[in-house]
């Protein structure tokens, strides 16, 4: 305790002052910059080659590992998929008439499409997955040099919403995924059309799940129900994505708020 007293007497003010100045400077730079503060941007640029390097090495090891995998499972899966494709083709043939009729009705009634066609994609590679146990984030290898901005939506190859760009540097960007605690967006149960708010919850984050709050008191959710984004997109998000088939009601849905 004497050591602490002496230390605080001699240097406490200076240390406090230095910490305060640095904290305020970082907070101010973070607030003033639209994408990322200059220091954060510079650090990102400096570490980008390292991220790319170790990602390349890790991918090489993964490729080697995959090369030696037993192909029996793949053959079985291939056979099952062929059957599935045959069924799907049959369904498509039956649906073609319905689609044509739907198109005609759309034209007759002058209806606008619910889902906007997305354009202006930029293909990215994930150079870093979660960097701490308290946030769910990804680092991508594209940034403001390719017009990527904070608030841009990120989707996977199947069109599912992955998350939103939270920081963007010259050749990198950080994405907070949907299950991060910062997430809060309108959601709709596909089967019953009931609306709620999907929110990130720290206790569910590790299970890749969101909490669905503000549901009607008499809602009748069932395990396996699909939840989609309702279209109520938080301010700052650059585009509206409607589907995320990965959201399903767990076996024991959380109690509605």
């Amino acid at each position, binding site marked *: 305790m004497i050591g602490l007293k002496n*230390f605080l007497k001699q240097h406490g003010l200076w240390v406090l002052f*230095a910490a305060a100045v*640095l904290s305020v400077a*970082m907070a101010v730079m973070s607030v003033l910059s639209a994408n990322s503060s200059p220091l954060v941007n510079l650090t990102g640029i400096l570490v980008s080659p390292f*991220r790319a390097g170790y990602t390349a090495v*890790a991918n090489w090891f993964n490729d080697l590992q995959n090369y030696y995998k037993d192909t029996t499972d793949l053959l079985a899966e291939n056979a099952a998929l062929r059957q599935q494709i045959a069924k799907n083709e049959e369904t498509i043939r039956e649906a073609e008439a319905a689609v044509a009729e739907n198109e005609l009705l759309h034209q007759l009634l002058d209806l606008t499409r619910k889902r906007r066609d997305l354009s202006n994609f930029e293909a990215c590679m994930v150079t870093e997955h979660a*960097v701490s146990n*308290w946030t769910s984030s990804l680092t991508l290898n594209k940034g403001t040099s390719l017009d990527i901005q904070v608030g841009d939506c990120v989707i996977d190859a199947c069109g599912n919403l992955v998350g939103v760009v939270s920081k963007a540097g010259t050749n990198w960007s950080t994405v907070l995924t949907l299950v991060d605690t910062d997430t809060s967006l309108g959601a709709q149960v596909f089967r019953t059309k009931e609306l709620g708010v999907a*929110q990130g919850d720290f206790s569910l984050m590790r299970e890749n799940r969101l909490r669905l709050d503000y549901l009607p008191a008499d809602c009748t959710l069932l395990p396996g129900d699909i939840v989609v984004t309702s279209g109520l997109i938080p301010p700052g998000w650059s585009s509206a994505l409607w589907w995320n088939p990965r959201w399903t009601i767990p076996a024991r849905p959380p109690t509605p708020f």
Partner: protein
Amino acid sequence: MIARNETIFKWALYAAATALCLLIQGGLLQRLEFWGVIPFLYPLLAAIPATFEGPLPGTIFSLCVGVVCDLLLPGPIPCLFTLIFPLIGLCAGLLSQSWLPAGFLCSLVSAAAAFLLTDSFRCLILWMQGKAAWQAGALVMVREFCAAVPFLVPLTLFYRSVYRKTHLDD
């Protein structure tokens, strides 16, 4: 009184050692998962050097590590580590000066304090955002500490070798 060149050499060596640890964390440890968590060494990089160097140098070094961490890691506020790591450095420095001599036991206690401070602060921020998760946060804290404990020994040996290299006259 250490000559200025020796001081510069000492802190350059500490910085290089820490940069190497950051590289290992980014390149290897972030891809591993033990008991459901990534081994998170950043608090140890603030605490262990401070146990060898004492309160004032330890606090300043931890402050620098905190700034680097804030620049590298996404977080709920832009200066989370800048605020917490100097406190960790101070606690670790005072601990080694007053109660436990720098070594494995001191590193273990400092690491426990480091995770307690860092993760409590994160829980506090979540609570202030209206997303309180004290129980889940405590569980993650315990897991992070357990996942980091195996790395205490090599890190302590590593920083001790840096300390010995830079304090030949002590």
